């Protein structure tokens, strides 16, 4: 806004009003455990509901808008523990759900970019805030230091338990350290946020493989409980002829090799470039099989290793790719092709090395109950693509036997396992998901362990309701375009495979993007006792969000159901704001002659049970 000055006058008036309201308003705060309020929060704040960690997204975006970056960072950390990491690599389910991205509303808010902004822009003097419980004298072993293990250890330490993390690799972080390339996630930033967890007293034992150096049974004897968060490490295979040829890599091993090299070094991918003293590009023409984040990371890494032709080959459609639009754009920008609706038939080789790969075309078929999509090969559609390397990035599965032969009873719906005192978390129990889901899973498991160790539920979730005297945003903010992320040029990307591609927002960009958030945590209500049914609010509403209703049904779970609308005045019992359709433009609030529209800030918060 400041840049082009388009809305500066309106903005100024709005901000002055805002200050005035604040000065004269008296806050009324209530805490609710009413299912209707939980239901309202879930439906009205789609971004938060979509976030597996239930991050207070409108809350932290509002803080960024007020340039309170440290507070925004802490609001994030309270839910997702590693905001700087997630601000860079989260799969962004919140943005898919964002109301600003709904049909007719434009483009979703850059929620993740704003998460990164608060991590980048907070003061160097920023202090992290942790509410520590008294020590319990109990100890918990956590197997794995990936996102789920770190999240579990973090919460267990806060709850007063001694947490000891056992990590197979030399460094902590799991997939964050070894699976994600440094050009997306700088390692100094990763280590800072891991150290924030370790500073709570979490002990880290690296190069300690449970199942090899120490057994799960020993851990159960030495600790009061064990959390297994060993992730997914067993690669899914292509299952085609030629998979054993040289220069056929699995995605995770390829990324491990790339991530093992430091700044200024060419990663050693195979013997060819090892023997050539690292100078030779190890791959030239690369076929990457898969359509997820790892596949794209492999493809983008291959470009940085000097590959001239890199293409992704996916079995289903472009729309089925499990990556966000930003990643798709960056892959295209770097010259990576995508061939959809194909599946590998066999890998061709000459002298033991890859010379090409044969694919068949596929079509999409729906089958089963409920229907699910599968790709079906089209008969007689085989074709050959010449290449010198194949990377199979089809994801990984958990390897239970790698950890223990006696561990049973894994159930993705519950943290407990078949072994007493042994719990599971993250991808190890759910199968391959994403970082934010793993963190949420780790936190859920920590609470289950705490209940097991203390026989007490120590926390409860409530809805905090706070009267709010202003809408916090003028209508003009609805028309701001999404602020694109700053990135480095292609030559800089190729100069070193560790150069971070995205460079973050400056404060002005963060402010501008924060203004786009509808602030769906503000609940708008019409007081039916004061409403004179003048319809002025309906007349100015830009959306079909103010409804004449005859009943508001209540669902079996105690939440509100969908409004039963009516066009007949004799049946209207209330004019109601549908907070699922409302874009919080504030037009109705401004025009109401009876001042009968109220705004309430709603937040999901954690409270101690004895508060």
């Amino acid at each position, binding site marked *: 806004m400041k840049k082009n000055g388009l809305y500066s006058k309106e903005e100024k008036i709005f901000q002055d009003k805002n200050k005035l309201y604040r000065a004269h308003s008296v806050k009324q705060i209530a805490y609710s455990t009413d299912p209707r309020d939980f239901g309202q929060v879930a439906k009205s704040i789609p971004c938060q509901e979509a976030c597996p960690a239930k991050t207070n997204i409108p809350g932290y975006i509002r803080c960024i808008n007020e340039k309170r970056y440290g507070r925004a960072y802490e609001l994030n950390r309270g839910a997702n523990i590693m905001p700087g990491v997630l601000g860079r690599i989260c799969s962004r389910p919140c943005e898919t759900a964002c109301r600003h991205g709904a049909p007719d509303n434009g483009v979703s808010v850059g929620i993740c970019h704003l998460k990164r902004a608060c991590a980048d822009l907070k003061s160097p003097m920023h202090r992290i805030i942790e509410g520590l419980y008294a020590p319990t004298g109990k100890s918990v072993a956590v197997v794995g230091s990936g996102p789920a293990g770190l999240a579990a250890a973090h919460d267990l330490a806060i709850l007063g338990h001694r947490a000891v993390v056992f990590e197979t690799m030399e460094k902590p972080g799991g997939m964050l350290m070894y699976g994600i390339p440094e050009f997306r996630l700088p390692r100094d930033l990763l280590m800072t946020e891991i150290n924030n967890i370790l500073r709570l007293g979490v002990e880290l034992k690296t190069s300690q493989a449970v199942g090899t150096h120490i057994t799960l049974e020993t851990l159960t004897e030495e600790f009061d409980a064990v959390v297994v968060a060993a992730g997914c490490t067993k690669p899914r295979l292509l299952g085609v002829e030629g998979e054993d040829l040289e220069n056929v890599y699995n995605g995770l091993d390829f990324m491990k090799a790339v991530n093992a090299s430091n700044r200024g070094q060419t990663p050693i991918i195979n013997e060819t470039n090892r023997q050539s003293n690292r100078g030779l590009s190890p791959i030239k023409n690369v076929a990457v099989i898969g359509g997820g984040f790892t596949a794209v990371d492999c493809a983008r890494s291959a470009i940085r290793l000097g590959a001239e032709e890199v293409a992704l080959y996916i079995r289903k459609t*472009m729309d089925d790719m499990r990556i966000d639009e930003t990643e798709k754009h960056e892959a295209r920008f770097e010259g990576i092709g995508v061939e959809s609706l194909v599946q590998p038939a066999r890998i061709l080789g000459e002298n033991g090395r890859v010379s090409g790969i044969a694919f068949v075309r596929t079509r*999409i078929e*729906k089958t089963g109950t409920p229907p699910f999509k599968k790709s079906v090969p089209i008969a007689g559609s085989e074709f050959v693509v010449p290449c010198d390397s194949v990377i199979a990035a089809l994801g990984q599965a958990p390897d239970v036997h790698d950890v223990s032969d006696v561990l049973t009873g894994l159930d993705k719906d519950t943290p407990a396992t078949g072994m007493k005192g042994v719990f599971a978390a993250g991808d190890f129990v759910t199968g391959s998901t994403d970082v934010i889901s793993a963190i949420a899973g780790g936190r859920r498991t920590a609470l289950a362990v705490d209940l097991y160790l203390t026989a007490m539920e120590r926390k409860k979730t409530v809805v905090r309701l706070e009267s709010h005297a202003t809408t916090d945003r003028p209508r003009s903010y609805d028309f701001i375009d999404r602020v694109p992320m700053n990135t480095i040029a292609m030559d800089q990307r190729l100069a070193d495979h560790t150069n971070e591609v995205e460079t973050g927002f400056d404060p002005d960009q963060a402010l501008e993007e924060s203004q786009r958030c509808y602030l769906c945590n503000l609940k708008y209500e019409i007081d039916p006792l004061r409403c004179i049914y003048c319809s002025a609010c309906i007349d100015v509403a830009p959306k*079909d969000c103010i409804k004449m209703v005859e009943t508001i049904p209540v669902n079996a779970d105690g939440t509100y159901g969908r409004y039963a609308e009516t066009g007949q005045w004799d049946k209207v019992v209330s004019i109601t704001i549908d907070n699922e359709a409302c874009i919080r433009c504030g037009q109705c609030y401004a025009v109401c002659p009876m001042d009968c529209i109220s705004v309430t800030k709603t937040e999901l918060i954690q409270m101690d049970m004895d508060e």
Partner: protein
Amino acid sequence: MPNSDHYVIIGNGPAGNAAAFTLRENDPDAAITIISHENICFYSKPRLVKYLAGKVDEDALAVKTMDEYRRRHIRLRLGQTVERIDPDSQSLHLAHMETVHYTDLVIASGARERLLPSMKPYADCLTFVTEFNDTTGLRKKIADSTRFFIFGGDLVAFKFLKMLTDMGKQVTLLLYPKAFWPHRLTKDMQDAIVKNLAPTNADILADDDLDTIVPEDRGGYWVTTKHGVRTQADLVFSFNGLIPDVDFARGCGLEIDHGILVDETMRTSLDNIFACGSCAQIYNPDINTYTTSIGWPNAQAQGKVAGLNLLGEHHKVRPAGRKYFDLEGVKIKTVWWEDLEKDEEA
């Protein structure tokens, strides 16, 4: 009993019109509506370049007149944009907040400009010529301007370049080997094209790429390439092929890859919805690949099949055969593009 069927066609190009007129021929009573975001009746896109050059007027673009729709009781809703399809309620949500119900839907929304990822930051500086709506005010701008920069190298780019040089304009073309999408020009093809364009007196840049486009305060742009060529231009155009115009259909349950996936009967993955023309993606067994941009005659054939099958018949569209296409003296084998204008002239 009155016929309550309402067939809605999204798109007013060759596929949509073929579907609409086929439906009318075979169902005289049903309500038929064509919805198009364009503000002009069915027109010839290949003639747009001549229109921009001032050689033909708007009337000469027309393929069908409003009267033809009136006589066949086909309702034509122009300048209206479909934003969303709701297959459950069989309705379309339009940008002006109207909801239109359908009993059967034919999507023939065509294609739109392809913006290269490297040009995304400069999208506001670029001018595209893919449909009539793009040409509003452009004729005068072209007449008033002297210096032009063209990115790309698809079919329209070369026609456009020749039009400008014929008008005595100063033109720079940055030739992209991937512009003739989905084909990639080989080095030999690229060299041949550069040679064949020499008589136009345009500056042809090859083996280079865009670095920056900087708008000037007084209008116009400075275009700089990676190799340091710096050129001033009044207008900057991008011609890098087309992509299916299907964003409005995403999220409604239709299977979409590059385009809306259809089988050989033009049925989509959802009941009561057909797709045809450049927005549809269909497997062509003769050349063992999926195709989207399928050219005018193929679009018409697909529209006809969609219309017939919507009425309960079971026709299959015949796979489009390969043809050689002449791109500035270079023969390229495609199944879709044809130089209709050249055919017309012949």
